[in-house]
């Protein structure tokens, strides 16, 4: 699985951090998304996909 984020689209709602804290974080200075791992291991795939589904700004793209 490959994950891409679009920081320009992000609105800092933090849904991704709640859903997959091992994959996403938020920058301290502006609250925008940070990708911690580009290719999450198998056990984080479901959470990562859920994060992409929750993101209100469609700022997370998951390629399988």
């Amino acid at each position, binding site marked *: 699985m490959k994950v891409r984020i679009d920081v320009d689209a992000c609105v800092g*709602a933090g849904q991704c951090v709640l859903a997959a804290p091992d994959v996403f974080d*938020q920058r*301290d200075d502006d609250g925008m998304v940070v990708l911690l791992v580009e290719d999450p291991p198998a056990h984080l795939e479901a959470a990562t996909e859920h994060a992409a589904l*929750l993101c209100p700004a469609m700022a997370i793209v998951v390629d399988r």
Partner: protein
Amino acid sequence: MSETKVGTRSELGSFPTERDPRCPFDPPTEYVELRAQEGTASLACPVGVDARVVSRYDDVRAMLTNPHLSSHAAPSTHVVAGGVLDRPVAPGSLLNMDGPGHARLRRLLTPEFTVKRIQAMRPYIRGLVDDHLDALLARTGPVDLVADFALPIPSLVICELLGVDYADRDRFQEQTAVLVGTNSDPAALEQANLEVVGFMTQLVLTKLETPTDDLLGRLIVRARETGQELSVEELVTLGITLLIAGHETTANMIGLSTLALLRQPDQLAALRADPELAGTAVDEMLRYLSIVHFGVLRQATGDLTIGDEEIKAGEWLVAVLSAGNRDESVFPDADRIDLKREATAHLAFGYGIHQCLGQQLARVELQEVFARLHQRIPTLRLAVPFEDIEFKDNALVYGVRALPVTWDGEDA
């Protein structure tokens, strides 16, 4: 490609605003019909225009992420009789701004609301909840859970966060009730607005002089340091938005969800037995109750399609969050409360670029309340017949006006 359908006229002539009094937790029954029919119905709204009513979950998400819709009359002016739809957007009015102006302002605020920042407030919030429960238990019931618990907790939290003196609460709490009414008297509205603006202007002027270590103070500094200095007017509008959105919504959620759970003893027993359930329970109750109950209003700035329906520039659209949250195709058995349901994809905080900025704060406040209230007061029950509870049918945010409750002496 499927054929494009143009505006289905519904049997329903006007936007449904009334609930079945027998089920005050359910949205108006007409929403079931709206979800079932093809396309979107064009319905007459109390404000005096027709709007496309978007009620299915997928359509609501599609609508709220469409860049050709403006929020200038958001959140719910469509249900305000005598409401003004073409008022110029006040500088600093995050809810009503579009495009880059909105993004710029939102980014200045977002660091205050990250998951990390809000989690750091959890011990403080837990302490507040416990202090209020101690105070309740030191008394004998009945008490009004709204006045003595649901309203003070989120008010204290937002005051602490913003840097507002809680002792000044009489300068904004009552005014808020007027400002969120859908049929408030225009003179009273004007007066309430003037009072809140006066109060916030004073506060902003003090903080501009000496920025304090609170949200407003830090915002002033952050804006200056990044060369995006905010005007007094912008700061006042933002401050008022946060103050109102920060206490009124969460307070109503606490009151209404407590009542709904008292009516579902099996679910309540599960929560009492396992306070960890508060995590999923909060999102499920947000979904089930959808307190921004009239949905959110947008206007098309260009031609677009929602689902397979054409919308013309200038048309009004309402995303009915409460209808989408009861969409069976996404939430099976949607009319039932299931505190174990994974409901985080609900629409109660909206969707798209305006999705609630304060949602992580609201979640933590509600989680602490859900986990502590029923643990500490296991015999909590209504002190009046259910039929006597008054619901806020005429407010932009749904809830109960008062919630008289009592408990057994041994809980203390």
